[in-house]
């Protein structure tokens, strides 16, 4: 087995079993619920498991609009004994795009009845990432959750698809034309032409 192959296998196993020593960085999966017995608006909820903790994150309302006040509720409890986290959580926000990595602090919240509550109000529609940060047992935790404000632009996938298809069709067409011209100037073609 060559060295390149061995390195690849080593990287594969390292990726599989390595444990992050400093912090955890995650993105959860959202679900939506409605409680018709209370006046609470529909909520978006994400549950994740991070290091020693189960984290539940809820957003009220589920689909906040620009200039509409909303709230994030965060629950963190230890996996081993179910004990709720009692420290402080820093909530930060940033745009969910590759170009803008600038973060703003939304607030620092202490626990209240085992819940960390953070209010928000966004002026612009778009896709945001809320980051909750806390420290426990000298380990830092960073948990990222998606938040959509208003109707975010979804032309991305359609634009990319249409562009890719157009690029493909044009490329194939140009290659075919080149092939045709090459065929026309080839001796085989000239011979055929004379025979006509």
């Amino acid at each position, binding site marked *: 087995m060559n060295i390149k192959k061995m390195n690849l296998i080593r990287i594969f196993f390292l990726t*599989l*079993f390595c*444990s*992050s020593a400093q912090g*955890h*960085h*995650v*993105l*959860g*999966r*959202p*679900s*939506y*619920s*409605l*409680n*018709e*017995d209370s006046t609470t608006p*529909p909520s978006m909820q994400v549950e*994740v*498991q*991070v*290091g020693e903790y189960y984290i539940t994150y809820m957003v009220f309302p*589920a*689909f906040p609009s620009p200039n509409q006040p909303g709230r994030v509720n965060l629950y963190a409890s230890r*996996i081993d004994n179910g004990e709720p986290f009692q420290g402080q959580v820093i909530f930060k926000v940033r745009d969910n795009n590759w170009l803008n990595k600038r973060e703003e602090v939304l607030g620092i919240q202490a626990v209240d009845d085992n819940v960390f509550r953070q209010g928000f109000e966004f002026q612009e529609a778009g896709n945001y990432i809320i980051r909750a940060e806390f420290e426990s047992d000298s380990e830092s935790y960073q948990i990222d959750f998606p938040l*959509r404000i208003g109707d975010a632009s*979804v032309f991305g*996938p*359609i634009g990319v*698809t249409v562009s*890719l*298809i157009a690029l*493909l*069709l044009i490329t*194939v*067409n140009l*290659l*075919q034309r080149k092939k045709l011209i090459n065929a026309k100037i080839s001796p085989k073609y000239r011979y055929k032409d004379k025979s006509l």
Partner: protein
Amino acid sequence: MIMTHPGLPYEWAIIICLLMIILIVLALRTSSIYEPRQYSINLVELPVIGPLIKFLTFNSWPLFILKLIVVLLFLFVITAGLFGSPIAERNLATVLTWNLWWTGVIVSVFFLGSAWCAICPWDTIAGWLIRRRLWYRTSSNNSLNLKLPKRLRNIYPALFLLVGLTWLELGFGFTINPYMTAFLGLLIMLLAIFSLAIYENKPFCRFFCPIGRTIGFYSQLAVVELRPIDTDICANCTTLECYYGTETIEPCPTRLVMGRLKQNTYCTSCGNCVQSCSKKNIAWRMRPPTREIAQDARSHWDEAWFMLILLGITSFHGVTMMPFFEKVLSKLGYMINDSGSLLLTFSILLFISLLISLLVYIFFIWLTKILSISPISFKKLFSGFAFTALPLAFVYHLAHNLNHLVRENDGIGQIILNPLGIEAEPLSMMEKHARHTEILLNQDLIFLLQSSLIVFGFWVSLKIIQNRGISLIKINGRYLLPMIMFSVLITGIHLWLLTQPMIMRM
């Protein structure tokens, strides 16, 4: 709150076990039975249904209209997924794709074979864009018509994509995400367009499409087939319109010669052969569902892997919907310090489950080889008996999907009225309970159907073991016990899974 569907009652499981014992005794006492081709019925000759099939298959435009409808539906799904509500149960994209189509298409395979492939929107859109014609053959097109590299001319690309699709579906949660459902639809469409634009014929349909190949393999158990009416006419045919096409009709997209066709695996039911054959010798036929898989289908190494992984994926699919799975996932995630939605842990579990199903099969093949004292190679035994996995996977897939299909499609009317789910609120607890209790079929009928499917699959697998045993190593009876044990083990696992409560998808 997690809502679950009730599992198969234990009384039913006991009846199934008794029937399995009777079938094993019968299999050990009888030798294999060859089913002659004469058992097939030409569907075109049947009253009522015959003229309808003739109308659909002998003209190009009825199929074009069906394709157009499906393409419009597909585009509507993409629109709903990208622009509609992110609530899965309120959006047409997720409900139509995962609750109706993905579950229904597997059920349809038994009755209609690979009919879905004939109206597949991905291939249709790719064809329209690259061939530049809505129907009929055209000489000029937008394809480079390169030869597909030899290393890609096998079923492994489709197998790889099938595992990837399962990972996205169950691990990444695409089934509950309308946006990602639309994204996946676009991605598959791009794959179909690119492969048609670069390579000759339709490599997407034959080698790449995980859905088409799954349907293709399962359709070996279908009750219908597209075959020559008179095999002698095909034997003496020198024009081979089915393979080359005609001036107006495209050739077979997967390069099949109808006179030599023995299995449904690569047939896309497009009907080109029916229309192009100058002798009108190709027709839809009805047949016993066991004949092809037990005796006609030829074994290939790559196809054997596909069938076995398909079995592993099907079983794993069932396991992920058990209430205990989340706990196992969480514990393992904690052990390996995984974070978030535990994708790494899920991937490890998927990999382990596929590995286990393969190792179990390899163990029983090894036992068969030792018992038979045959000089046949391990590879030939591995490929030959792999057909046993197919009915076991298919019936469990059907029994499992039956739950999704009849228990999770309440509320479809609301989706039709508001397909994008605009202003729709998430399901309330009352609605969730209503959906949980309102089912399309009587519960006992569902149990009866599920039980019958499991028994049927087990019976077909025994038939395969008997026939393949004779054709591969000339053995019968007790020498086939290892493979019978394999079938019993897999059926037992599937039966146990069916008796467990199953988590409602949405």
